C-alpha cells in the first residue's frame, strides 16, 4: 500500500486544457473519491494516475517515487473499469491470472492468488465460466478480483457502479466498503454520484471544469462547503439557493432580506463593503421545517408534493420566483396550493458571495458542523 502525491498536474489535448493544476495528497490506506459532473476531468485524472494518459505538466509520485514516465505496469496500480473490461475469450480464472502470467510468475503462486481472490469475492464456483455467462454483478466482482490479484499499491476504480441497477448498486457499494476495511488498501474512486462519494470516502475531491473545488471528508463538505458549487453538488436533494440582499453588517452578524420581505440575522463574517449587494443564501431541505420557530423564514405556495413514506418533500415557490424544497415529516398533510411558512435555525444557513465563495460562519452550532 502506498501514498500518492499530485503536484500541479496539468493535462492538455492540443490547445484544449482539461486539467488546470491539480494538487492532492493521498495517505496510505485512504479511500479517496473524485466526484464531479461530466466533463470535470475526474476520469482523465484517474487515467493519468494509471498511466494510460500522458501528463502535460506537473509531477505524480507514488510511494515517494516520481512515476511520470513509468508505464502502468511499473506503477503498481490496478484498475477496475466502468464496463468491467473483462476479456471475453478467457474464463474467469484466466481473466484474473492474465496479469500475473504476463509477469511470468510461477503457476503455483498464480493459482494461490487467484483462488484467494476468488474466495474473498465469492467467485469460487465461477472460475471456469466465461464473462458472457455471468450477470452484471458477477462481472463486477471478477473485475475487482482481477485487480486484487495483482496486489497493487493503489486501487483505481472508474465509475464501477454506473452499469448496475439500483439495488445491486447499493449492495456492491457495501461490499466495496468492506473490501477496503479488509484489505486496508489505498483506493482512488471516481464517480459522478455524490451518494457513493459520501458513503464510501475517507476524503472527497470535488472537481469542476478541470479544477479542484474542495477537498475534505464527507462531513466537512456537507457542513462546510467552501464554494457554491460544492454546496449545490453535495447532498440530496440539493441545497436550496435564493438571492438575498445584505442590509446590515455587524461584528459576526449580518442582516439579510429574504424574498417575501422577511429580514433575518445570520452568524457570518461579512465585510462592510458588501452592504447592499446581492449574495446567495443556501439552506438544505432537511434543515427547513414547517412553522416559524427558526430565525430564517421563508414563505411560499406549494407547487409539488412528493411523498416518500419516511419524509415528504414540499416544493415551494417564493415571492421572487425562486423555488425552495422543504423536507417535511412523512405524515405531513400539506396540499398543493397551500401557502406555508418554513424556517430553519440561523446556524444552518450558508452564504455565498458574488464569486460563489462561502462567507465564514461564526460560532457554528455542533449539529451543523463536521466532527473532527
Amino acid at each position, binding site marked *: 500500500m502506498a501514498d500518492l502525491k499530485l503536484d500541479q498536474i496539468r493535462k492538455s489535448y492540443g490547445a484544449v486544457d482539461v486539467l488546470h493544476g491539480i494538487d492532492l495528497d493521498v495517505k496510505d490506506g485512504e479511500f479517496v473519491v473524485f466526484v464531479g459532473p461530466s466533463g470535470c476531468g475526474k476520469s482523465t485524472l484517474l487515467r493519468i494516475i494509471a498511466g494510460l494518459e*500522458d501528463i502535460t505538466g506537473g509531477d505524480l509520485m507514488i510511494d515517494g517515487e516520481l512515476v*511520470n*514516465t*513509468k*508505464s502502468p505496469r511499473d506503477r503498481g496500480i490496478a484498475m477496475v473499469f466502468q464496463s468491467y473490461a473483462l476479456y471475453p475469450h478467457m474464463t474467469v480464472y484466466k481473466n484474473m491470472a492474465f496479469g500475473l502470467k504476463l509477469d511470468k510468475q510461477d503457476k503455483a503462486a498464480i493459482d494461490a492468488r487467484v483462488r484467494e481472490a476468488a474466495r474473498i469475492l465469492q467467485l469460487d464456483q465461477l472460475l471456469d465460466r466465461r464473462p458472457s455467462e455471468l450477470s452484471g454483478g458477477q462481472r463486477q466482482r471478477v473485475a475487482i478480483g482481477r485487480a486484487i490479484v495483482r496486489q497493487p499499491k493503489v486501487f483505481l476504480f472508474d465509475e464501477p457502479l454506473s452499469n448496475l441497477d439500483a439495488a445491486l448498486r447499493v449492495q456492491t457499494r457495501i461490499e466495496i466498503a468492506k473490501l477496503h476495511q479488509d484489505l486496508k488498501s489505498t483506493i482512488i474512486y471516481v464517480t459522478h454520484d455524490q451518494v457513493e462519494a459520501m458513503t464510501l470516502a475517507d476524503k472527497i475531491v470535488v472537481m469542476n471544469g478541470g479544477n479542484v473545488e474542495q477537498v475534505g471528508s464527507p462531513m466537512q463538505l456537507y457542513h462546510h462547503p467552501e464554494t457554491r458549487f460544492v454546496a449545490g453538488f453535495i447532498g440530496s436533494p440539493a441545497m436550496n439557493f435564493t438571492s438575498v440582499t445584505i442590509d446590515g453588517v455587524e461584528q459576526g452578524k449580518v442582516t439579510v432580506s429574504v424574498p417575501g420581505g422577511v429580514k433575518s440575522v445570520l452568524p457570518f463574517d461579512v465585510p462592510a463593503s458588501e452592504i447592499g449587494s446581492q449574495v446567495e443564501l443556501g439552506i438544505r431541505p432537511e434543515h427547513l421545517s414547517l412553522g416559524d420557530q427558526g430565525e430564517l423564514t421563508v414563505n411560499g405556495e406549494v407547487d409539488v408534493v412528493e411523498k416518500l413514506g419516511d419524509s415528504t418533500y414540499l416544493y415551494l415557490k417564493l415571492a421572487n420566483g425562486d423555488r425552495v424544497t422543504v423536507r417535511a415529516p412523512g405524515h405531513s398533510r400539506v396540499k398543493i396550493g397551500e401557502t406555508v411558512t418554513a424556517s430553519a435555525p440561523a446556524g444552518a444557513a450558508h452564504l455565498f458571495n458574488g464569486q460563489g465563495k462561502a462567507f465564514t460562519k461564526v460560532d457554528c452550532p455542533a449539529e451543523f458542523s463536521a466532527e473532527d
Partner: protein
Amino acid sequence: MNFANIRREDASRAVIVHAILLTYTLVALYPIFLVVINAFKTRKGIFKDPMGLPNADTFSLEGFTKVLAKSNFELFFYNSFTVTIVTIVIVLLLAAMAAWALSEYKFPGNTVLALYLAIGIMVPIRLGSVSILNLVVDMGLVNTLTALVLVYVAQGLPLAIFILTEFMHQIPKDLKEAARCDGVGEFKIFFAIILPLIRPAVATVAVFTMIPIWNDLWFPLILAPGDGKQTITLGVQQFIGQYVTDWNAVLASLSLAIIPILILYLIFSRQLIRGLTSGAVK
C-alpha cells in the same frame, strides 16, 4: 507534447512503427509511381534514368500521343464508363427494391429468398461462362455492352442486396409507420420515402460495384471483344499485346488506365473503406 514525460520505450516504438508503415507504403506505391513518371518521358529517358522524374531533357508526351492515335482510347474509356454507370444505376434500383421487400414484408420464403440471393456473394459467376456465352448468343447480344451490363448486374446484386438490407433494417420504424398511417401506397412509400433515405449507403454500394466492373478482363474478353466494344482493361491488354516493344506507348496506356481509378479512389476512399469495414465484419 511534453517531451519530458514521454517514455523512452514509447518513442523508439513510434520510430519502428512508422518505419514499417513507411516501408510498406513505399512498396505499395512505388511501382505505380514508376510507371506514371516514366510515361511522361522519352524512350531514351525511360531507359537511361528510369527512377528519376522527367526533366527538361526527358519530358515527353510522345507515349500518350501514340496511344491516343493508334488505339481508340476514348472509345474504350467511353465503353467502360457506360457499362459501369448503367450497371450501378440498375443495381442500386433493383437491389434497393429487393432489399426493401426482404427487410420490410413478412412473407413465406422471405428467409429462403434472402439466402438464395446471398449465395451469389461467394459463387464465382465466371464458372457459368460457357452457358452465359450461349445465353448471350441466343439472345443476339454478343459483342454488345448490354450483355456486359446484364452479367455485371447479376454479379453485383447479391452484395448490394446484402448491404442495403442491413442498412434498411436500421431505418426507424416510426418513419415507415407514420407514412402508412397517412394512407400512402406501398409503391409511393418506397420511391418517395425509403429511396431517398438510403443515400448514405449509395456511395458504398456504388464503389463496391464499380471497381470489379471497371477492372474486369474476363467478361469483356468473352462477351464483347469485338472492335468498338472493348472496355479499358481489355483495350489496354490488347494494345500492349500489340505494341509490346513500344515502351512509351505501353507506359502511357497503363497510366491512362490507372489515373481515373486512382482519382476516383482518392475521392471516395472514405466511403469505400467504411463500406468494406461495416459490411464485411458481419
